[in-house]
């Protein structure tokens, strides 16, 4: 393959890694803002994964938080109750999320569920997941949650080191995304996003590629969820609830731009800034958040990347 064809992608990946690597320098050593930036990276990974699932194969998974939580709880409970090392239990968590995501996708493709139905089934799964965590008290401590500080590997303790470790994971997932999109699977994804029926007629195995997208996306979500569990030092069902994760990820992806490489990244930055702007408003913050969300959704319907493409006339991946 000629390298020129992917020049824009390489430049974008390089720019993203350089800019994000410089962010901690600009924060002047404030632990609060470093934590915020790290959380932003974790949400970027969620969004990159959700982009593969929803942006490319139109499967509206409203269980991003539940998949992340599943991986997180599997990993933490294994580490806590069976004293498995987190490095060994995180992969188990990731596999569990990937299997769940793959099964949802397979079942919904087989049953021919439309976008809305996939959304509802996965949303219902999120609710079931939250209730299971609450109910299986002896394993998960229910609503009280689990302190993960004692189990945490040093590399994921809050600080500069963990910022760069998580940035590494984000870059891996972006590079993986890029490679996936230039492969045969990427072509299939684009065809499915355009017109699923036509793709099927053209001989593309729609079931296989949809399940593939859901599985790798869910694995990435699981990775981010497990990292979050150790990084934040505390997990409970609420931090993986639809309001904390799914709505944020959906809005981020739409703001950034579906089906783009850069969209999840700039969407997350914008979302993090927005979140920080409305936080000091106290009782009014939900209201302002809602108003801003409506305005942004109406104004940037096709996402920031599409708008930038139009304004700068540059092919932004």
């Amino acid at each position, binding site marked *: 393959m000629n390298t020129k064809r992917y020049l824009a992608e390489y430049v974008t990946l390089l720019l993203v890694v350089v800019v994000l690597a410089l962010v901690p320098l600009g924060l002047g050593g404030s632990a609060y803002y470093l934590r915020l930036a790290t959380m932003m990276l974790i949400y970027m990974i969620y969004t990159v994964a959700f982009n593969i699932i929803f942006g490319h194969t*139109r499967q509206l998974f409203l269980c991003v938080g539940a998949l992340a939580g599943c991986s997180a709880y599997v990993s933490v409970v294994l580490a806590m109750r069976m004293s498995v090392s987190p490095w060994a239990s995180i992969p188990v968590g990731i596999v569990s999320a990937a299997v769940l995501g793959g099964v949802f996708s397979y*079942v919904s493709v087989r*049953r*021919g*569920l*439309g*976008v*809305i*139905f996939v959304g*509802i*089934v996965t*949303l*219902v*799964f999120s*609710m*079931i997941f939250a*209730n*299971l965590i*609450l*109910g299986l008290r002896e394993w998960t401590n229910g609503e009280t949650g689990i302190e993960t500080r004692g189990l945490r590997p040093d590399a994921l303790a809050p600080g500069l080191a963990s910022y760069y470790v998580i940035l590494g994971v984000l870059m891996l997932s972006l590079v993986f995304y890029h490679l996936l999109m230039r492969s045969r699977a990427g072509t299939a994804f684009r065809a499915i996003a355009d017109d699923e029926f036509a793709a099927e007629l053209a001989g593309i195995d729609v079931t296989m590629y949809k399940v593939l997208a859901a599985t790798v996306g869910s694995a990435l979500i699981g990775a981010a969820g497990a990292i979050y569990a150790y990084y934040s030092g505390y997990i409970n069902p609420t931090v993986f609830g639809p*309001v904390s994760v799914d*709505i944020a990820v*959906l*809005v981020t992806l*739409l703001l950034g731009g579906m089906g783009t490489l850069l969209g999840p990244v700039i969407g997350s930055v914008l979302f993090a800034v927005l979140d920080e702007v409305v936080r000091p408003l106290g*009782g*009014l*913050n*939900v*209201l*302002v*958040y*809602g*108003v801003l*969300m*409506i305005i942004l*959704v*109406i104004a940037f*319907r096709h996402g920031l990347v599409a708008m930038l493409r139009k304004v700068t006339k540059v092919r932004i991946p």
Partner: protein
Amino acid sequence: MIAILIDGTVQGLQLALMAVGITLIFGLGGVLNLAQGQFAVVGGIVAALCINAGMHPVAACVLGILSAGVFGLVVDRTLLIPAYRCAGEERLLLGLLITLGLSFVVNGFMDYKYSDISLSLRLATPSFDVAGISIRTASAAVAAIAILAFALLFAFLKATLLGKVIRSIIQNEVGAELCGINPARIRTVIVVLSAMMAGLGGIAQGLFSSLGPEMGNGLTDYALIVAVVGGVRSINGTLAAGVLLGIVNAFASYYVGAYLTLIILLGTAVFTILLRPAGLFASRS
């Protein structure tokens, strides 16, 4: 046993009241309304404010339902216009996000302004006996209201010209437009009607126990599940799904613990969707 069945049916009717609005707006406007519960909260809280101001409860409830309708009118004529300009999947997504934003706005406003107000209506006689079974007056009232509302809705859709127009748009929007029907106007009528049904659902919640300003999301979730289990396009399906899930809920909470109940309820919803993806009455369309 029969008492549980009655209880579940009544609860289901209330759920169906909330959900039918989602079905109608989706069928007609192609927008999945995620602020349905918030419509109910607006109606209920307005009624509560009027009662606190010394108004007669019945008049207050009517005013509450009307204000939910006005709220629906404003939302349809302002916020939803950008969504209506798009078509197909894009309209669906945009509508989803706009109504989600709207639900945040209503939640935030209610929490900020009226966090200590709730609607709870108490009837003069708490319960009465029929053939040895004690029935709560509130349950009977909710059942009567819901059945009346649904009967009126069905009569409206079957017997009036406007109802025929509405059914024709649900079947085929382009075809209806070719016959000289203006879908935008009908859409407004439907959104107002749905908002009023939701307001009625809110009042029913107030009759049962109480309706607080923070309950919007919970009501939306249940309404959404009921609407989808019913097939999101069929009103009969919504009614049946509401009653089915209400009964499952009542039996499950009687026989097993509270946390398993919700899982059984949600599991029922998932299985219904998987077994009959187009809704309970799919074969008829």
